[in-house]
């Protein structure tokens, strides 16, 4: 029973005859708490990424506003909100308005099933992880709409790249999740966390790597940031956006990063579990560790080309994910529950072997088309 349900039952006992109120009040309280958490954390993440990226690049990053520049995201937000809202004259005006909303809302909806503690979860759905996958892919529709409605060729290229990328990377992502689900024996997020006495990234390293790479592609982060490749298609889908609408994309991007950092922490790093500190702190710390890795990768790696991106998903990640899934299924079926460490070792060897084998498929110099 989650804290919110308990709150509702308690309200129902003190307000007899007002049962509808007992449903509405906890819902509003939950939404406000989640929104507060998301917006605060997004601001922290924006600041954190800029500072950390700065340090990776031997510079300081924003440090003017407030101690160590913590108020810089707020200044950025104020600046963005005060900007003029420009709508392309020949664009699709309704879609142009709607696209940022479609991008931003699903990101908030993901947080409904992120467990912040043992009972601190907005809705403990029994199909929690399926819900996450289903909801998060709605954002693609928004990005596609933005690219289409902008009436800009750069935006259109970006939109089409996005769709191809998302469809491709959803598959290995889900197959990696299935491995987790098999081991946890439940689709519910709280159950998945509860079953991680040993974090799953030790038990299934390959699944973790595949999920992490799939997440990078879902988040459009480097090295899969083809849709906003600033050196090729300038800014991609949000090239024609400014003001509040651009802020929605910006928030959506970092909200998505926060959501997926939390989900990686939940699925593979043991979620809110941890000694001494309160559960929410552990979740935030783990999410920050994941996000730091994402920033680190962004600070190092170049970008893939669009056909290489597709090849990596379909020829690299997907077969590996399938092999990984069968391996884990076999281990769950035949290995006794007490021999988890054998499972971890076997999976580690499997991961190394598969990666080495697939490195033989690495070819150079392809990609030219006769025209």
């Amino acid at each position, binding site marked *: 029973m989650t804290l919110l349900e308990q709150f509702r039952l308690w309200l129902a006992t003190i307000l007899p005859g007002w049962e509808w109120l007992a449903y509405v009040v906890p819902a509003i309280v939950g939404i406000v708490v989640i929104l507060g958490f998301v917006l605060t954390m997004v601001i922290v993440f924006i600041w954190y990424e800029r500072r950390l990226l700065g340090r990776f690049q031997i*510079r300081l990053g924003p440090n*003017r*506003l407030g101690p160590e520049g913590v108020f810089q995201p707020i200044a950025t937000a104020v600046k963005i909100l005060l900007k003029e809202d420009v709508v392309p004259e020949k664009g699709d005006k309704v879609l142009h308005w709607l696209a940022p909303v479609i991008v931003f809302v699903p990101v908030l909806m993901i947080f409904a099933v992120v467990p912040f503690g043992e009972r601190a979860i907005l809705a403990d759905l029994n199909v929690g992880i399926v819900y996450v996958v289903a909801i998060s892919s709605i954002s693609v529709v928004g990005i596609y709409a933005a690219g289409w409605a902008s009436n800009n060729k750069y935006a259109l290229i970006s939109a089409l790249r996005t769709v191809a990328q998302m469809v491709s990377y959803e598959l290995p992502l889900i197959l990696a999740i299935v491995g987790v689900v098999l081991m946890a024996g439940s689709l519910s997020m709280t159950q998945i966390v509860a079953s991680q006495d040993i974090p799953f990234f030790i038990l299934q390293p390959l699944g973790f790597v595949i999920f992490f790479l799939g997440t990078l592609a879902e988040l459009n982060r480097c090295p899969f940031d083809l849709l906003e490749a600033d050196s090729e298609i300038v800014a991609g889908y949000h090239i024609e956006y400014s003001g509040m609408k651009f802020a929605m994309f910006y928030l959506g991007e970092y909200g998505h990063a926060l959501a997926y950092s939390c989900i990686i922490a939940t699925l593979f790093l043991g979620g809110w579990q941890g000694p001494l500190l309160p559960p929410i702190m552990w979740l935030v710390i783990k999410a920050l560790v994941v996000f730091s890795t994402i920033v*680190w990768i962004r600070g*190092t790696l170049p970008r893939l080309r669009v056909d290489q991106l597709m090849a990596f998903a379909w020829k690299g990640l997907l077969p590996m994910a399938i092999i990984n899934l069968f391996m884990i299924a076999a281990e769950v079926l035949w290995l006794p529950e007490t021999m988890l460490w054998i499972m971890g070792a076997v999976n580690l060897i499997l991961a190394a072997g598969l990666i080495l084998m697939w490195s033989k498929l690495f070819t150079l110099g392809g990609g030219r088309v006769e025209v």
Partner: protein
Amino acid sequence: MKFERYGIGIAKGMAITFKHLFRPPITVQYPEEKLVVSRRIRGNELVWFPDRCTGCATCAKSCPQGNIEIATHVGSENNYVVDKFELDAGRCMFCGLCVESCPYEALAMGVSYEQAQYRRGDLVWSKEELQPLNKRPSGYARPEIEAALPKQSLLIYGDKERDEGGQKLRLIPLSKKRGRGV
């Protein structure tokens, strides 16, 4: 069978960026921290010494832009008296050829580089504005001035060897100004 492209290159690159996380930043917080410029700096400033100038206009002839305007009349001791010495900093490219060509060392480049103006008209320097009242002449083509100027700060010496002319000279401590959004 040799395995080479399994991600080792990516790992090496990540190691390098991680190493840089612990290196000191190389940027300078400009309005608060300023570097000591070269002793021979050709700053956005020209210094004109009226007592040394004979009005020979060699500088005007040597200017590639034809940017220096000199008007003189013959004075009482059969010398030139400079009526007008005008220079448009908006057109000047600070090549230093006028300073090099001056036979009487009456011109020098300046050390200052903060000469932005809001209007182009303000960039035209008249005789009075060119005089060395509040200016520091630089040592460009003027060895005796050069010797008196402070040593340039060099990035190559880093923070530890600052005595040998290291990177930073903190004119204003950063902490006091921080948070004011200068």
